[in-house]
């Protein structure tokens, strides 16, 4: 085979491999992804077995521990629908009642079971928003 032809063949092979790999990657990302839902959306849409990323605020007074299981409820940012979650695994330090969390859950019967070590606490607003006095003098 002459060198120019060989290079073209090589290029086509390499490019098609890249395309195949990239499409596999993209396809699996859609099938492996868990949608992010608020509690009210989750109540409407949850199917058993499928995992979801639940985002919301931890309800005041809902946190209690039973041995290794941490129970808490998550509600919409505006209040309303509450989802009880039974979670095992690492609890991030900033986890508190009233704080915004993201946790991957699966529906099991009436409750939602948190996936191990999936709990993320958004950083407390205290460190995020400045006091009302900001920009007064800038």
């Amino acid at each position, binding site marked *: 085979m002459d060198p120019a032809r060989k290079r073209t063949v090589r290029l086509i092979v390499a490019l098609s491999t890249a395309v195949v790999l990239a499409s596999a990657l993209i396809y699996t990302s859609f099938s492996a992804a868990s949608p*992010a839902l608020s509690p009210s959306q989750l109540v409407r849409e949850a199917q058993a077995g499928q995992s979801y990323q639940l985002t919301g605020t931890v309800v005041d007074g809902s946190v209690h521990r039973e041995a290794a299981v941490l129970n808490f409820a998550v509600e919409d940012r505006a209040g309303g629908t509450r989802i009880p979650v039974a979670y095992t695994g*690492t609890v991030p*330090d900033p986890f508190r009642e009233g704080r915004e969390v*993201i946790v991957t859950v699966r529906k099991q019967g009436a409750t939602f079971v948190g996936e191990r070590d999936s709990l993320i606490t958004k950083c407390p607003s205290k460190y995020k928003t*400045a*006091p009302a006095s900001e920009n007064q003098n*800038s």
Partner: protein
Amino acid sequence: MAGLGRVCLLLALVVCLYGIGAALYGVRSGRIEFSVSARRSVYALAGILSVAILVLEIAFLRDDFAFNTVADTSSRTTPALYRAAAVWSSQEGSLLLWAWLLSLWASLALFLTRNRMREVASYATAILLGFGAFFVSLMIFYATPFATTNPAPAEGVGLDPLLRFPTMMIHPPMLYSGYTLCTIPLAFGMGALLARRVDAEWIRATRRFALAAWLFLGMGILLGARWSYSELGWGGYWGWDAVENASLMPWLTGTAFLHSLMIQEKRGMLKVWNASLVLATGTLAIMGTFLVRSGVLNSIHAFGGATLGVPFVVLIAALIAGSIYLVVSRRDMLRTEHRLDSLLSRESIFLANNLVLVGLCFVIFWGTYFPLISEALTGRESSVGPPWFDRYTVPLALVLVLLSGVGPVIAWRRATLANARRNFAVPLALALLVLVVLLGAGAGEKPLANAMFCCGAFVFGCIGQEFFRGVRARRATAQEGAMVALLALVRRNRRRYGGYIVHVGMAVLFIGVAASSSFQHASELGLSPGQSTRVGAYTIRYVRPTATITPKYDAAHTGSTLSLGAVLDVTRQGRHVATLEPSEGYYASEEQAQGSVGSLIGGQPVSHVSMDGGVTRDVWTAIEPDIETPALHRIVTVGNRTLPPEDALVAIGYLARAYLQHPPQAQFHFIVSPLVMWIWIGGLIVFGGGLIAIWPAPSAVRRRVAIRSRARAAQGLARA
């Protein structure tokens, strides 16, 4: 003082705009004095921003709470060391740090190239000052570090206790140095394209900066991992978090660039590829800064507000559009000078390494931005978790480690069977030996981890052989001892042997990652004093609870009011191994609503991990005490009712005593993972290798050697 800071920022913006104008006018009109003046305005920018950051640093050290950022991220109870580092914990402060580091590194780069590549350097000056102007404008119009409040609050909020950790003080400057250094090859690359001077000159001039960017970024990432492992009460060092990924992406493309630039230098190939890599690395570095600062993706790092999204998106869009335009419009100049001779050559191995690195970057990019992508495509935000990342990155990492062994020893242009046999017989034998040993030990269960061990052994074999041959050759020609020969070898070929050492370090690091992620034993459970549990081969017994009241102004501590913990006895087969004392620190919140006692411990609790680190394994422990039991809760409520703030510490004393007398069950997190320490050791080896590669070959030495060899040649001639 704040006034001085604000004046500095305005002055900095003026200097930037003047410099951009002067640089562009100088290069267009060919008037050198304007190019020189533009370069000097970069030095001026560095000076002005140094004053600005000094003003802010002094405000932090003097507890000047009139500055809003000081009041938000520092307090009198924050230990002095951490007060100094709190400068870059806020959005505004970190923007200032970014701009300051950019001005310093840009000054250095332009100073070193002051007598070369006048045109390219002028364009680069304009681009670097453009970045400077962008960040300074952000500080003037969006988030100024010099905003003040009058009258000043009496006390600040305090530095987030999670950030009160030694590596956290150097992690941000390291990472930001890496990010800002990435913009220097970007600026020179764009300059070379703009000036249509696309030979290897600009690559040679900025190679060292690309290497420094790579080194700083890598160390920044590693320090972050170390922080996560020993501070977050989570026990992991990598979680595929958006911000971690954002710093890894430019590092990966930077690694690819450092390899492919050698091919352009030596063979004049891959010019389009190199230009694209440099532009991509710079853009990814800016995107990394953007991700940390914008809050568009959910991340545990969401320290920033959401105000900076739009300007960054505009900058990134401009960078991407500019890069594509430049590469496409200059494509004729970027024609390769040679063709690939053979698939079995160093060129093609380097190309393969580049493809793997860029593939890794693509995987991580897709996964990181997937929430945005899926929202755009399906109207619903969804995200992929660590298992998805692992599925692709683990095999790619295996290939990468394998190639890092093959690359340094395979021949340029075309490898023959004979030299392949000569180069790969020993390393392959070593890898097979490791495989046999592992199979004997039952390696079937974790094939990927064991494959990594074999690849690691292969790399050690390849690099070890290179060192051995180099030393042997020197000993034969120069009659030196083995150690002297080794040192001389590395000293004379810093770039080459520094690179080899980096490869060894990466292999060590990956072995640590593979072992600790695959052969880890973890346990989470509640224990009362006296109870014990088994984790892996170890028995851990909860001996007794501990409680410490930390004096408020004690600078030696991280500033927690109270810490509750446990004494743990770790034994293995009945023999004492270690006594560990994990604890949880409770910090003051300064929130009046929590009451006089409640506010003393109402801040964010932070785990203080305790571990017994070893060469073969780490025993890692963290505790989450139950501070909300009815008895303890009553002490706080009664104290809130009866005690004024100045006496509130008394109640904390009662609380500590009550906790010690009737300790409730505490939650523990135990991890025994093998070879974790080798991740950090591997990182140090990489760092050392990188430093060797980056160190300039002393020109004086080179001259002396040249003179001596010339003298010897003359002597020989005279004798003949």
